[in-house]
């Protein structure tokens, strides 16, 4: 006498095998499949939106900076501030050739993020252009090389400088 129906047993076995395979895949997959670090330039209220259109030469302007970490390990990050024109913007592979005006270093744990207020100085003699670019670049400390490396991430904001 066949108590357990063959087809019912086959369905139960199929569900069990699929469930087991999914469980193992979930368990053995790498924790971070696509590592990345994020950089954000936020306004003075630490949100996206109310950015200044004009800044004053010789004064400071307030922003917030966001650094996110999904690299799989704690991140020692340095945000480098530069002021230039459209021609001075960095690329995904090379940083801007301008001299850093200020930098900020933070340590962000894996899966975490850090938002902090910064005051960026606008020099007395800003670049001669209709609009200048506030550039922030993300540099990461490379523990293997023992030095700072450009991450390829940057933000910029065009502003008009009022000379006083």
């Amino acid at each position, binding site marked *: 006498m066949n108590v357990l129906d063959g087809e019912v047993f086959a369905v139960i076995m199929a569900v*069990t095998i699929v469930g087991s395979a999914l469980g193992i895949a979930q368990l053995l997959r790498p924790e971070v499949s696509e590592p990345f670090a994020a950089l954000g330039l936020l306004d003075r209220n630490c949100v996206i939106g109310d950015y200044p259109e004009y800044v004053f030469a010789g004064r400071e302007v307030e922003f917030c900076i966001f650094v996110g970490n999904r690299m799989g390990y704690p991140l020692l990050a340095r945000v480098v501030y530069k002021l230039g024109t459209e021609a001075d913007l960095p690329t995904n592979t090379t940083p801007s050739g301008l001299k850093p005006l200020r930098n900020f270093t933070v340590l962000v744990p894996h899966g975490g993020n850090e938002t902090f207020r910064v005051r960026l100085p606008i020099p007395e003699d800003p670049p001669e252009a209709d609009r200048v670019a506030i550039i922030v670049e993300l540099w990461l400390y490379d523990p293997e090389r023992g030095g700072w490396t450009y991450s390829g991430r940057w933000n910029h904001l065009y502003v008009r400088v009022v000379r006083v």
Partner: protein
Amino acid sequence: MTRHPVVSSPRSARYLLTTSVLVAVLAAPALLHVANAEAPDPYSKLYELYTRTVRLASQGIDVGGVVEHLSKALKLLELGRYTEALEELGRAEGLLSELELGAGGTVLRMRLARYGTAAALASVPLATYLLLPRVYVYAWYRARRRWVVVVERTRR
């Protein structure tokens, strides 16, 4: 009457003073170097500890406590409070050394737990295939144990 050598003459005093100053000037860099070697550069220390922390984190060890100390030290360094930063770095180093000492055992335990769970999950279909029919039959018969089998005799 014997005369003592002229050691206290102005010329001699000038000579002594010049020699002392010269020796001090020449020795100063060496003395400063020794002093610098004794007081570590806080940023170099931070980078060194960070490198060790990343090494541990890449093995899957929880370095949350160390990161907290290092982050605090970094903020103090940015504010120019070097003495407090060095104290915080010292605390981070202590915790890091503890973690490094037990790293081998921790990694082994984590791997055993991970692959043990994977093996248990892999054995679920096999266990189901072997045990389910038996358990089902056992339960089926147990549920009907009070049943009475009646053989009906049919008339021919």
